[in-house]
Every structure is written in structure tokens, then in C-alpha cells.
């Protein structure tokens, strides 16, 4: 993992001191709310329905056990004992008092964390593959470049007041697990000629009220050119992006208004002008950062296959967990383990208690070299677990109530906080997610359905990624009541797609039945082990429409 140096630490402490003074001035009446709001947003502090919400940055979703324990401490001391994993691999605390925020920022700084650039019209937390550095299908560890981008974009003076917020994702694996094509800039590490590596750059993706899948900007950018090229991309956007209309201010609107070719040629021109200005990282600095991501030493740990097979046969829940929550590691004696924060009869998706944070931190220390990742699907991952330890890890997680074996199944729902918390929402997301999770509580049925991404947003801003759900649910306000619109066929992966609206919306209490009908239609129509998306592509939307609205 990247380790802060004294410069980084001083910077975070300075920012914390600065915000402490700003809070004091606000409470003393020296700053009005209009003056204070942009300052608090620069430090990730929102005012929501019931309380302040503090969003803490977790760069590319990577945490160590000490940091996770400290987040647990913060949850217990200053929140209601809760945190919430976000779809940008961050954590947010939903029950925060303004007067406590300076203390919280100090507590974060103690473990090299902060809340800077988790809000505002700047470059937000760079997201990445949660399996980075461990995945069997990886070309290169994307965290190296995510960290370089973090340092470049942190307090970047030119890009602190962009027309609108700006989101970057980078992945280094064959499979896209970071939804790169739904980002302002998506970056995929690819192989080039003679064993070189470079970046395929995509631009203009995003969800919200005008969703777009990103377009290819550059098929192969040499690695050494990354920062100057992105600087040119951001500069052209900063110059031409619309500031007169918040709904048209994202780069996706610019790129689609002038066309990808026109945007590319402007960027190219700017890039040629600035690329000699020493924006790119010197090779020794790149090597210094790269060295911090050298893989942990993974000693050989032979597996007792007989014991494992026996345990799996004796315990169906463990067997299911092995099938869905244990993923291939580049070292066959090791595995990547997903810890689910969604389960039937349980929590709002992505909610985590202080106790759970501590239990996971303990498990990470015991079994996973102290490393934890947050996924954009609002779960956690232990990236390096010896397969020989899987039974013990499972028992520890079971004691903590964290062994739902449902990764990427229908109950692994992404949901925004919705109208239960959010000032922008039109409708609630959490109880809908809980009702659907309960409806599909039978693990055998969920497994029979297979991988199915179901995403819920409480308003058109799409924080719950409904556009990219195989099944998407969007909360709308229909004459003062909560209604839900269903979309089908979205995908966050390599074949990224935006879902299509099936038809008129439904009241809240009808939604679980509607989802049931959609799933039954899929099961009736699919051939053998065909995926939901493949079936949908083959049969089209009509059978689903007929199932939920009846024959015409």
C-alpha cells in the first residue's frame, strides 16, 4: 500500500486545522451558511435530512486494518455506531454533528485519511478494481496509476473549480470490475507492442439524468504520457464545459455536443502544446510509487483438499460461500474473498457497524496481510487469503454475522441512501432493497437465478447506478407518492449498456412482485445456463413487459 510521507501528513493536518477554524467561525456567526457551505463541501461535509453527512475518501478503495479500526472508532464515538460503503469505494457517516467534525478529521488524519475532494466540482476519489494486485486476470496493478492520479489531482489548482464533478476509474485486468465506461474518464491498462504497457482511454461516460457509455478516446497511450494527456483532457473540458446549466455541465455533454472527434483533436492540439512542460512523472518518482505496491510475500500454504471437500459437503452455507464469495487469485494457493454487506432480513445495503469494522480488521490481520478493499458494489474484499485458511476465516466471519454467500447474486443490491437520508431523493431506496432481498431470501433460488445485478436509485442523479443494473429501479415522485420505474438490460462491465425503461412506474408495495415476475420470465425463457443479459438480448423486452403489465 502507498505510505504517506511527512509532506502528506503535514498537508492533511493543515487542512484539518483550517477546517476547525472555519467551523468555529461558522458557529460564532462570522461565516454565513452561504459562505460556509462551499468550505464544508470541500471537506466532504453535507447537510442531509436528519444530520450532517461526512464522506471520507478511501483512495481506490484500499484500506489497511488500522484505518478500518479507526473508522469503527469514529462510527462508535461520533455516529450512531454505523458507517455506509458508497458506490465510489468510500465510506460515509450519516449521523454526524457539525460540532464534532474537527475532532473527526483529526482522528482520520491520525491514520492518514481525510475527506478532501469527496464533494464539489473537482476530481473525486479515483476508483479501481477491488481485486487489484491479486486478480488472476491482471495485466498490471492499477493502484500504482490510481495513486499517481490521486497525487496529481489532489489540490490541483487548475481543476479545483471545474464546471462539474469529475470521476475517473482505472482497471488493469481483463475483466472490467470498476465500471470504467460509466466514468468521465475510464482507463484500462492494456498490453502494447514489444511487451510494453499502455492505457486505453475512454471519455464521457456517466449515469445521472443523461446517461452515456464512454467512448474510446485513445486506443493506446504510452504509460509515461498519462498525466500530460489527462491534463490536456481536463483543460479542454474546463474551458468548454458548460457552467450555465448544471444539467449540461458534465464532460459527457460536451463530448456528445461537439463529437468525440472534435474533442479528441482539441485535446491533441493542447497536449502537443503542453507535453514538454514536465507535467509527466519522472521515471524515478514513478519507480518510487510503484515500489510501494510491490505484492505482499505470500508463503506457500498447501491446501488440505480432502478436509476442504469434506467441510463443503457437510455445510451447504459454507459451500455456497465458497462458490460465490471466493475468487481466483493469481497465486493458486490463495484466494480473493468477498465479504457481503447485504443479507435477507437485514441491514440497508452497504451499512456497516463499528463492531463489524473491528471484526473485519481483525480478520484482515489474521488472514489477509492487513489489507481490505471497498467495492463500488458496497461490499468489502480481503485480497490475499491463503486457501488453507478459508475455513477458519469463514468461522470468524460467521461469528461476526458476515457470511452471506451472495456476491453478484440478485440480493447483492446496490442502493443509494435514498429519501431515508438524502436531500435530493424523490423516493426511498433502502426499504425497496430490503423488501426485494427478503423476497429472494431463499439462497437456493438466488443461486438458481445466478449472477444478476439489481441496482436502485432514489432519484435521477443515479447514485445507485440503476442505469447499469441488469435490472434497474428508479424512484420517482408521482403526485406526491413514491413510484418506481423499472429498466432492463443495463450492464456495468465490458459490454457496458444503459438499461431500457419497461413501462409505467409502480407504487412501492408492488415492486417486489414486479421483480419476481421479471425473474420468473427470465427463468422461463433462458436456455441452459444463459445469463440474464444474454436472454434479454435474445428475447427482447416484450416477454418481460407482458409478464408485468399483462397481454395487450
Amino acid at each position, binding site marked *: 500500500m502507498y505510505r504517506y510521507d511527512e509532506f502528506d501528513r503535514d498537508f492533511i493536518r493543515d487542512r484539518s486545522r483550517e477546517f476547525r477554524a472555519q467551523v468555529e467561525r*461558522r*458557529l460564532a456567526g462570522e461565516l454565513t451558511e452561504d459562505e460556509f457551505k462551499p468550505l464544508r463541501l470541500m471537506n466532504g461535509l453535507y*447537510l442531509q*435530512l*436528519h*444530520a*450532517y453527512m461526512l464522506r471520507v475518501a478511501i483512495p481506490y478503495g484500499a484500506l489497511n486494518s488500522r484505518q478500518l479500526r479507526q473508522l469503527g472508532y469514529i462510527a462508535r464515538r461520533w455516529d450512531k455506531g454505523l458507517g455506509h460503503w458508497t458506490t465510489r469505494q468510500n465510506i460515509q457517516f450519516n449521523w454526524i*454533528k457539525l460540532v464534532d467534525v474537527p475532532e473527526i478529521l483529526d482522528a482520520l488524519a491520525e491514520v492518514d485519511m481525510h475527506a478532501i475532494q469527496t464533494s464539489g466540482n473537482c476530481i473525486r476519489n479515483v476508483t479501481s478494481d477491488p481485486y487489484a494486485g491479486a486478480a488472476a486476470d491482471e495485466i498490471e496493478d492499477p493502484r500504482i496509476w490510481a495513486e499517481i492520479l490521486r497525487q496529481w489531482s489532489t489540490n490541483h489548482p487548475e481543476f479545483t473549480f471545474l464546471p462539474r464533478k469529475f470521476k475517473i476509474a482505472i482497471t488493469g485486468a481483463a475483466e472490467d470490475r470498476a465500471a470504467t465506461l460509466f466514468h468521465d474518464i475510464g482507463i484500462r491498462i492494456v498490453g502494447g507492442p514489444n511487451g510494453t504497457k499502455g492505457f486505453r482511454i475512454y471519455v464521457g461516460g456517466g449515469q445521472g439524468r443523461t446517461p452515456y457509455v464512454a467512448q474510446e478516446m485513445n486506443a493506446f497511450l504510452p504509460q509515461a504520457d498519462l498525466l500530460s494527456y489527462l491534463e490536456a483532457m481536463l483543460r479542454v473540458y474546463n474551458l468548454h464545459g458548460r457552467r450555465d446549466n448544471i444539467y449540461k455541465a458534465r464532460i459527457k455533454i460536451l463530448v456528445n455536443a461537439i463529437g468525440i472527434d472534435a474533442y479528441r483533436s482539441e485535446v491533441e492540439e493542447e497536449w502537443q502544446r503542453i507535453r514538454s512542460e514536465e507535467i509527466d512523472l519522472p521515471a524515478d518518482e514513478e519507480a518510487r510509487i510503484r515500489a510501494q505496491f510491490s505484492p505482499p510475500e505470500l508463503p506457500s500454504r498447501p491446501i488440505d483438499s480432502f478436509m476442504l471437500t469434506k467441510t463443503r459437503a457437510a455445510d451447504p452455507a459454507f459451500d455456497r460461500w465458497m462458490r460465490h464469495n471466493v475468487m481466483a487469485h493469481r497465486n493458486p494457493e490463495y484466494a480473493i474473498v468477498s465479504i457481503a454487506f447485504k443479507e435477507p432480513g437485514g441491514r440497508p445495503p452497504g451499512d456497516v457497524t463499528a463492531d463489524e469494522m473491528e471484526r473485519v480488521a481483525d480478520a484482515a490481520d489474521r488472514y489477509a496481510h492487513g489489507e481490505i478493499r471497498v467495492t463500488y458494489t458496497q461490499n468489502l474484499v480481503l485480497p490475499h487469503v491463503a486457501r488453507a485458511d478459508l475455513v477458519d476465516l469463514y468461522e470468524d466471519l460467521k461469528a461476526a454475522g458476515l457470511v452471506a454467500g451472495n456476491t453478484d447474486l440478485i440480493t447483492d443490491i446496490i442502493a443509494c441512501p435514498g429519501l431515508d437520508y438524502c436531500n435530493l431523493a424523490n423516493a426511498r431506496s433502502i426499504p425497496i432493497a430490503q423488501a426485494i432481498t427478503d423476497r429472494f431470501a431463499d439462497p437456493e433460488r438466488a443461486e438458481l437465478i445466478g449472477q444478476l445485478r439489481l441496482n436502485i436509485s432514489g432519484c435521477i442523479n443515479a447514485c445507485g447506478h440503476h442505469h447499469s443494473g441488469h435490472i434497474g429501479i428508479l424512484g420517482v415522485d408521482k403526485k406526491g407518492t*413514491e413510484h418506481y420505474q423499472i429498466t432492463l438490460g443495463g450492464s456495468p462491465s465490458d459490454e457496458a449498456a444503459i438499461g431500457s425503461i419497461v413501462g409505467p412506474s409502480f407504487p412501492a408495495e408492488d415492486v417486489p412482485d414486479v421483480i419476481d415476475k421479471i425473474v420468473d420470465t427470465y427463468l422461463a425463457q433462458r436456455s441452459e445456463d444463459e445469463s440474464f443479459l444474454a436472454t434479454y438480448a435474445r428475447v427482447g423486452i416484450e416477454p418481460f413487459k407482458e409478464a408485468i403489465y399483462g397481454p395487450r
Partner: protein
Amino acid sequence: MPSVITANRLQDGVVVYLAAGNVWKTDLAEALVAHSETELARLEADAEKAAAGQIIVGAYAMDVELRDGKPAPKSVREKIRAAHRQTFPDLTEIGLH
């Protein structure tokens, strides 16, 4: 239409309602109800003072219905705010009307 003034308390963000004696209460039932534009303007002036005095933030007037003479929330959003919580496992607990 009867209405009350609501806001968030500056120090902790908790939902509050303007009650008698320029006091901000967390219980909507205790809020002062304005029955006319004039009454509402008076409450709004008091809220403005409270905002200037760092008591509350983001004050606005909201429509209420009267139940046994006490103000009660109408919209889903205001029902959730008035309940001071986010867990409503029953999809119909927050009534549609």
C-alpha cells in the same frame, strides 16, 4: 393551508420546528401553525432571526394537516424527517396519503 416552519439545527443537523416562544422543537406536534399569509410571514421573520443567530439552518415553510388540532406531516419526505429515523421496514408504514 396550515403550515409550519422547519429547519435543521446548526450544531448537529437535527430536524426542528419553530414552536411558541421562539423555541425550536424536534416534535412537529409542538410547532406553531400559521393559518394565513400574515401569520406565516411572522414565523418566517422569526426563523430568519434564528438563522442569523446560528440556531438553525435551511429554514422553510411546509404544509401540514391538522390531526386533533396538532400539525402532522403530509409528504413522504416530511414524514421521514418528522420521524427522525430512516428504518421503515414496512413499505406501507409511511402512508401514501
